């Protein structure tokens, strides 16, 4: 079996690290070799962040290069655009339809980029409003798990494996909300809203 690479990108503080850990744990529970690469520290202060999860029979490198991801899940629109060339030409692109203005935009040094959604649609993006679905699940802070639900539709892991890991990994009080968030993210894809 070859190695599958999933890349999660977003803005520091959006919960990409927890999401990548959930994915890696699911792959490990399925008996696969797993490697994960993330960066802590300065970039976490509202900077652009990326984590890479790779799984398969045997994984060597924790990191990849542009064009190396089978799946790209972006927690934010501008970051999706920034990282889209890291996705393989036939890769699957899941994008949270939300913009977080970076500092140069906030202070007016840079205009709000336009046309990103159309450009990403051209790249085959599957769009979701993860925050809205998270609110619907009754767990506003679980947008990251909504996105894992959307990602899960494109991977072959059993839903039960995801549910087990989520229940183990999120704070006890938020288990139900996060499981609901996962379902809503997955359902959004199943119902064709995000069919590739």
């Amino acid at each position: 079996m070859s190695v599958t690479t999933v890349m999660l990108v977003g803005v520091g503080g959006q919960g990409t690290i927890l999401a990548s850990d959930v994915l890696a744990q699911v792959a490990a529970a399925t008996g696969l070799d797993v490697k994960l690469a993330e960066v802590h520290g300065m970039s976490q202060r509202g900077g652009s962040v990326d984590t890479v999860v790779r799984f398969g029979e045997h994984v060597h490198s924790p990191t990849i290069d542009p064009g190396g991801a089978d799946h790209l899940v972006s927690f934010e629109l501008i970051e999706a655009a920034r990282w889209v060339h890291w996705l393989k030409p036939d890769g699957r692109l899941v994008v949270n339809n939300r913009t977080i203005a970076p500092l140069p935009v906030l202070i007016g040094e840079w205009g709000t980029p336009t046309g990103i959604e159309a450009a990403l649609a051209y790249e085959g993006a599957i769009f979701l409003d993860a925050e809205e679905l998270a609110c619907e699940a009754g767990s506003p802070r679980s947008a990251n798990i909504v996105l894992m639900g959307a990602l899960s539709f494109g991977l072959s892991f059993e839903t039960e494996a995801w549910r087990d890991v989520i229940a183990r990994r999120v704070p006890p009080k938020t288990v139900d909300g996060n499981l609901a968030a996962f379902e809503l993210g997955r359902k959004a894809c199943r119902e064709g809203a995000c069919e590739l």
Partner: protein
Amino acid sequence: MALTLLSGNEAIAQGAWEAGVAVGTGYPGTPSTEILENLVRMPGVCCEWAPNEKVALEVAIGASMAGARALVTMKHVGLNVASDPFMALAYTGVGGGLVIVVADDPGMHSSQNEQDSRNWGPFGKVVVLEPSDSAEALEMTRSAFALSEKLDIPVLLRSTTRLSHGKGLVEPGRRVEHQPVSYRKSTAKWVMMPGMAKLRRVDLDRRLAAAREESESCSFTAEELRDTSLGIVTSGVVYQYVREALPEASTLKLGMTFPLPEGRIREFASKVERLVTVEELDPYLSMNLKAMGLAVEDTAVPHIGELSPGKVGAAFGAESPETREAMTDLPPRPPMLCAGCPHRGVFQALRSMDAVVTGDIGCYTLAALAPLSAMDSCIDMGASIGTAHGMGIAGGPGSSRPVVAVIGDSTFAHSGLTGVMNAVFNGGKETIVILDNRITAMTGHQDNPFTGRTLIGDPAPEIDIEAVVRALGVADVRVVNPNLLKPTSTALAAAVAYEGVSVVIAKAPCALLTKDYPDPFAVDEDLCTACGDCIRLGCSAICRAKDSKASIDIAQCVGCRQCVQVCRYGAIVRTGRACDIGSGA
């Protein structure tokens, strides 16, 4: 035991614990911080944050002298601070096994420079081990203590960002308690004055010879013969990039990179047609192999920044895969001070004073970026105070602009006190601002001598910064809440006007420490004139709406009131928290 997914840092902590380590110490620094944060949760280990890496290493040396196994952790630049004890340590050797973990940051994800810590091996004559994934990190750390005891030499375990913050599957085991050897007085071993050190230096060569033999039989060093037309000598996580990029090439993966196993390297060299090294940062292996007289070919592998499978492959002519076109013309997203960060108030005031600000290392270094743009230098931990003094005695910045040093609470504990002493001793006139946000923030909230809590979470005496600076001889000391902009400006102006060393302690907790925020603020569009004053605070919760007027993201606003104070039109008003959409779990 089942396989568990652990980061390199978690695996190092686990390995140390299994080896029966009794003492863990260090100073937080990305990417090394989580080692002690994990070790402290394991039973039977006394773990402490030290004020800096030099003290941390000295504590570990004392524990080793007492016969216990000791672990000390730091980032690459931390060993610069700890280099004084480090350079004498191979001479004395160890009591209980002593392992120094140094985490390098190729690519400078969160550092001021790149350093290749393998160089400390031959420089300090200390054994160097380099794990290539989490599983090896656990096993190497576990075995490093016994190796240190056997050789009577400390072991430097070199990690990098991708090892420390990468995760992989490991098999955790049980702890084997280490029976400490009782302390026995030996001036010949532990008192490094010339008479004894000269003898220990000779003895060190004997111990290094034994270390070379260990390197020849090191089980973490592996020769893998595949296509022998290309032979690659490599180490650490770079080995994984090589395997990914050049799966057919033969490899010699070195587990111990000082001393090098010359016999095994020569043997490998004799089996391959072309011999190269692939390594991150310095040509450490390449230079050593050349010095051995081996015909090592130079390669196009970059020596700056972090490597990747693609970069390694490209250096050997591998074709890069077809990629999508990169989207250009996107706004960059640099890291920034958090919404409600109390540091912002200080830099807002310093900018309006047109101060020359000598900076330091912490979250507040982000104030160097637009729109605050209120920092002139950042060199190393504690540099702000000395550099401000230097500018002052050189006649100032060439204008009437005041020179102000800015340093965080943890950085002040780390290396700031000696700078203050120097300023007072030499009759300096500089102003020093201590940004006391009650925590070591940038590395993820570690306690320090000024927070009143230890690493384990126990209450500790909260050392009073004001009393410390007064005791160091500073007469002009003011304490302000930096969230109150006017009092902060007034205090800074008075401090700068003072004819002598002055200190302003800007004391307010990190915005991320606060759990119960007051209600957020909103902009009254009728009153907003789009003047941009609040925008220039560079708060992530404030942006320009389409009509150029300000707009506040209530999901991010923590109600710090700084923008309310800069608004001349009273346009920023209290609101109810309408929606509680956060930004991820």
